[in-house]
């Protein structure tokens, strides 16, 4: 059985701004690996070795990262305008001549789930997941495992299971898609519904590990879920007098200087310099080439590549994107806050700061809980930040 995989990776991910201002949602890193890499790994490990990726927004970031990906050839197909999942899938028609699976590149999925989907004997099949908040996704109704209906974002509490958006399909579906496309309908649920109406059965199988990242703060929780089950491994140079507890992963060419206290689960990338006397607490991920200077405390935080954290800083429950240069005595206070994304207001129990790429923050800056600082901002020293800072602004 020679099944191909179509991975949809064209979307921007507007609700994940400021992080998606410079990279597509699928490239946001969790535990130092882009979300898309988790998807590709699972697909590859389930035995599929032909992958077609539909790309669009900031596609070079994807192509550049995966250029040497493990002997697998990834075909890239461009979706110029993001019109909907069915439309994205349609772009791949000429590469598919049989059974295939389609999945989104921005949800973490494990290999067990994909294998289950492939092994399912039915021609059409999908993965579903039990979800405590079914109203965010398409809720599925099924009988004896056969799909009856998908209801997108229902207002009332209806079923418990949601669609993961991961399907096993036949290439006959392209005709269905084109039919709907001619009517200006581009979403996949309508097409799936029509398959049932035309008489084909769609089998539903429960997915194993599946995680969606919708808002910037989801990164903190998903990061924790992923690294929670890590085992430690040490590389680089670990100086004398460093205390490591629990699963701590340290990458090549990284130096952990004396007096540093690291409690896992913690993942530290390559080429970093930590300490002396830096404290890193669970569940924290630090990217490559980052520097955490002495006497800083980092807790429950995601730090991406090329970040510089000055001495005596305190960062907790935060996400700091690539390339930030943060001076000494930086405090991101964490606590209760209400954050606004795309018109929605969310109340959060414990949240710190979201900082976009390449900002320069000078010494002694304090940030109240729940603040978003955009990308390429410049914040001068001795400032207390009490409201969101839009991208490319200056605070003097």
């Amino acid at each position, binding site marked *: 059985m020679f099944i191909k995989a179509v991975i949809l990776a064209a979307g921007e991910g507007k609700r994940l701004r400021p992080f998606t201002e410079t990279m597509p949602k699928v490239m946001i890193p969790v535990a130092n690996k882009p979300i898309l890499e988790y998807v590709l790994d699972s697909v590859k490990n*389930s035995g599929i070795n032909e992958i077609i990726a539909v790309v669009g927004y900031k596609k070079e970031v994807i192509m550049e990262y995966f250029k040497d990906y493990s002997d697998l050839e990834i075909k890239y197909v461009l979706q110029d305008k993001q019109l909907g999942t069915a439309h994205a899938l349609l772009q791949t028609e000429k590469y598919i001549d049989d059974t295939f699976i389609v999945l989104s590149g921005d949800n973490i999925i494990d290999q067990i789930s994909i294998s289950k989907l492939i092994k399912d004997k039915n021609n059409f099949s999908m993965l579903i997941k039990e979800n405590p908040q079914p109203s965010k996704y398409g809720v599925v109704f099924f009988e004896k495992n056969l799909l009856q209906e998908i209801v997108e974002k229902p207002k009332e509490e209806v079923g418990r299971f949601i669609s993961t958006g991961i399907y096993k399909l036949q290439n006959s579906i392209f005709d269905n898609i084109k039919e709907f496309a001619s009517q200006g309908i581009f979403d996949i649920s309508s097409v799936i519904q029509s398959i049932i109406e035309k008489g084909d059965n769609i089998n539903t199988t429960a997915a194993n590990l599946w995680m969606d990242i919708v808002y910037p703060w989801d990164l903190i929780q998903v990061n924790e879920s992923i690294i929670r089950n890590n085992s430690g*491994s040490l*590389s680089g140079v670990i100086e004398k007098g460093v205390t490591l507890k629990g699963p701590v992963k340290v990458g090549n060419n990284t130096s952990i200087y004396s007096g540093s206290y690291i409690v896992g689960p913690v993942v530290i990338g390559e080429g970093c310099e930590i300490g002396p006397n830096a404290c890193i607490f669970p569940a924290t991920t630090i990217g490559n080439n980052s520097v955490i200077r002495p006497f800083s405390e980092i807790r429950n935080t995601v730090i991406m590549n090329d970040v510089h954290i000055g001495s005596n800083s305190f960062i907790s429950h935060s996400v700091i994107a690539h390339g930030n240069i943060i001076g000494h005595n930086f405090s991101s206070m964490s606590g209760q806050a209400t954050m606004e994304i795309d018109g929605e207001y969310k109340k959060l129990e414990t949240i710190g700061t979201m900082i976009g790429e390449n900002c320069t923050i000078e010494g002694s800056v304090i940030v109240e809980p729940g603040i978003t600082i955009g990308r390429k901002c410049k914040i001068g020293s001795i400032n207390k930040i009490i409201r969101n800072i839009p991208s490319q602004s200056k605070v003097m």
Partner: protein
Amino acid sequence: MKCVILAAGEGKRMHPLTFTRPKVMLPIANRPLIELNLLNAIDAGLKDFIFIISYKSEMVRKYFGNGEKWNVKIDYINQGKPLGTGHAIGIVEKFVDDFIVLCGDTIFGKDDINKIIQNKTSMGLVEVENPQEYGIVETSENKVIKIYEKMDSPFSNTINAGIYHFNNKIFDYIKKTEKSSRGEYEITDSINMLVNEENFNIIMLNNWRDVVYPWHLLDANKEVLSQIDKNLEGLIDQNVTIKGNAMVGKNSKILSNSYIEGPVVIGENCKIGPNCYIRPYTSIGNNCHIGNACEVKNSIIMDSSNVPHQNYVGDSVIGYNCNLGAGTKIANLRLDKKNIVVVLNGNKIETKRRKLGTLIGDNVQTGINSMLNVGSIIGNDVFIGPGAHASGEIKPKAKIL
């Protein structure tokens, strides 16, 4: 009749020991794994061998040459990219006619090999306790019906042992074989095609040992050492006690007050003692130094490594060219006496062993009085500083100070 031995694999689950050597060259009782098979095959009457090599092939070639040391002919074929067992066997088409194939990294006994030789088209099967790790074989009236892939709930304990007797018809089936779900060409798929049209007999094996993880080497080492005879070359001082069967190689010196409890094998050019204690089931390679006040037990120490002063090494594997600083000790038992869990390549693995020391790669150096924890894995070229603790998985080139 030619004997083809598959020796191309890297053996990723044997890290860190296989970063610099192919799995088949891992030493058991001071002989590479593949040599054990070679010797058993020679005892069973085979004289003409083809080794299929790829990963770190130069090690295999260097050790075996053209086979004259064993009075046999050894030829080599490079598999190149690891595309599966079917692909590997397919390459030798021009060189063989009626031939045996065996997996170089599994240990087969000479009687079993003989049985396979006697049976023109056959494969070896064996019963195991953990069939879910292997491919089950469905049989009927001593013939193969189907070979299955690994499954979670296997319906039988009989698995594919990895030894076959083919004639050149197999090549037609190999050419028709498609890639498996692993992306490789598997000989088992070719056999599944063959049995639709011809008979393929089964031979139940009695003597079979598979080594998957580094600590399995200790089990194999123990089993092979249990069969050795006493053979003392080298220079043995007075006041040396040797009990049981021990083999000491040429030019090795055993100095005063060394206490050796066999079965133990010691290679050539070693310096053992004075005042050291070597306990059963220990293999020490060539050019090693086990020094004063050292105790070594149930361990494998590869060539040119030193356990030179006041060390304890138990239930461990030490790679090539390592040096333990004075006072370095290896812990091999948990204080709560529970079974030991090892982290290898990021995966937690239950070893089901109560005692397990450290698995050390090549060129590792430890400073004085350093401590290596139970079940830790030390990658190649690591440096453990004086007084430092090493625990868990330590990746190659790391420095723990």
